[in-house]
């Protein structure tokens, strides 16, 4: 089981969010979309040149910037 961040995670890989490194603001914004510690997450796509990352959490698909995605630590399952 590898620990990676959401930005470096491979396309199509699934995992579980272990940690969100960031202030309350970031955590709050991510949590309303379902991205919070313990949530199952599947990376759908990444874009070249540090482009946005899209991931599926529960029944929701979210798109977040590369910088934010880097702060989401995921344990790949």
């Amino acid at each position, binding site marked *: 089981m590898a620990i990676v961040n959401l930005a470096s995670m491979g396309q199509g890989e699934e995992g579980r969010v272990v940690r969100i490194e960031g202030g309350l603001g970031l955590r709050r914004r991510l949590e*309303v979309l379902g991205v919070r510690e313990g949530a199952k997450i599947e990376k759908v796509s990444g874009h070249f040149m540090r482009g946005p990352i*899209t991931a599926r959490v529960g029944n929701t698909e979210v798109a*977040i910037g590369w910088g934010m995605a880097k702060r989401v630590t995921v344990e790949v399952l």
Partner: protein
Amino acid sequence: MKILLMGNPNVGKSVIFSRLTGAHVIASNYPGTTVEFTKGHMRLRRERIEVIDVPGTYTLKPTSKAEEVAVEMLREAKENSNIVINIVDATNLERNLNLTLQLLKEGIKVIVCLNLWDETKHTGIEIDVKKLEEILGVPVVPTCAISGEGIAELIDRLPEAKANTYEYDEEERWTEIGGIIEETQRVTHRHHTFLDRLGDASIRPATGIPIALVVLAATFSIIRFIGESLIAYIFEPIFEGLWKPLMVKFSTILGSGGFIHDILIGKLFFFNTESEEFIKGVVVTGKMVAGNMVMVKTATDGVVPARVTIDFVQSMGLFTTGLFVPLAMVLPYIFAFYLMLSFLEDSGYLPRLGVLVDNFMHRLGLHGLSIIPMMLGLGCNVPGALATRVLETKRERFIAATLMAIAIPCMAQIAMVFGLVGKFGVRGLAPVFGTLFVVWVLLGIVMDRLLPGESPEIFTEIPPYRIPYFKALSKKLWMRTYGFLREAVPYVLLGVFIVNVFYSLHVIEFIGRLFSPIVRGVLGLPNEAVAALIIGFLRKDIAIGMLSPLGLTMKQLIVASVVLTMYFPCVATFAVLVRELGVKDMLKATLIMIVSALLVGGALNLIMR
């Protein structure tokens, strides 16, 4: 009593809104003092009740301006005995309950509507509605707004909506929600559908970029096809075949001249029936011979028989140009554009496009989602400017609004460009739209460099693809088309009126001489072109009628098209922007507009031959 529809974005609020307010009720796009939300009316036990479609929000702790508006509206609603219909996406119960709990905590009367109920079936979700109702202590009604299922029950149970302070520890909210989910929802494994796979394909760069190119190319070809067909088969025949003979008759009744005639009908044109061409330099018109035939004395050929006619573009009367321009030149494209845009919006494609262009938009100081206000701006800058609210920071809203006002031509401006240089084909059109695109990019880069701060990252939910619901789509289309008519027609008429007054008072000549150094010197246009620039403050589309008689060269028409599009949006957009950005920022934006318009116009004048 009022009813507020609240819920996360994309849970089907507008479809429920459409269902509640019904087809026989006029729902209007209501630009309020602080925000554009949608208002309509429904009947409940013979009472007429206002229904308000509040912008979607994930939380009552707002992170964007649109969410602030939602929270503000809730605060206002609390004062009266208003009801909130909390619309919940049944396929995303956990995330949606977050807002539900916050609403309950506010102590307002709530009824929960579990929408997208039908989708739970093929996503393998089972929800115990009774149990959920017990736990929340307010009515819970499953609905499928698209088919109308459950709406009757929702209306029936509206009076049962109640305030119920659901006690929970704020710190433990997600644990609390987890508990509710545990008790009420069971999920079995789901299979990926075709739409899911298409969703993934259109957001991965390798497949997504080609898909985007195809979608955009197809969209614009369809808009053009529909617009052109509407003009060729409906609007041209009506105006040329029915309205023109009527107006020619009306012209005779008014005495073929005079102030009233010139304001209502405008300039008459004389068609020499012998040489089959329009007569230039009419000196004296004689008596009507028969029908609309008249003997005219010309400067060159002496007395010749001629047919009196009207030119809908150049006559400049209220009943001629004033109606023809908005109805027959712009409206068909507005309709076609909003049809396609509504389709793209309802299908869920736009956020995916936003993700694909995110990287590029960051160069302009924006993020991917700003493609949505830009696309809206292509229809009309007013809703486009309002849509900049989805952007998080003031800096982004300023950049987006300024870029849109300068370099995104609205349908009226596009119609103007086509009217002026369309006859030259790609040779005329490409320089205009190419220049605007380059300006859009360069100005964005410059503003991103110069303005303090940086652009925030994209942060959005990507909705699943859905098949657009015809009734909601057509209602939206109607509202937008009607909105255009309501906004545009009065301004065009006012513009045409002012043009006439100006010409009769010789104001144009005076201002023309005043601005000659700029108009003639920098832009290389004749003094009279200043009239189009002045009226352009009101509306751009009238400018076609004002520039056409000047006999400009292709180069001059290209410069005029670019400058007219760039130097100022239009008075309606300006008013909205002042409201959105504040007076100070708008002055800044206006300065950027005028300076860049003159720079670009002057440069084009120098470069082109």
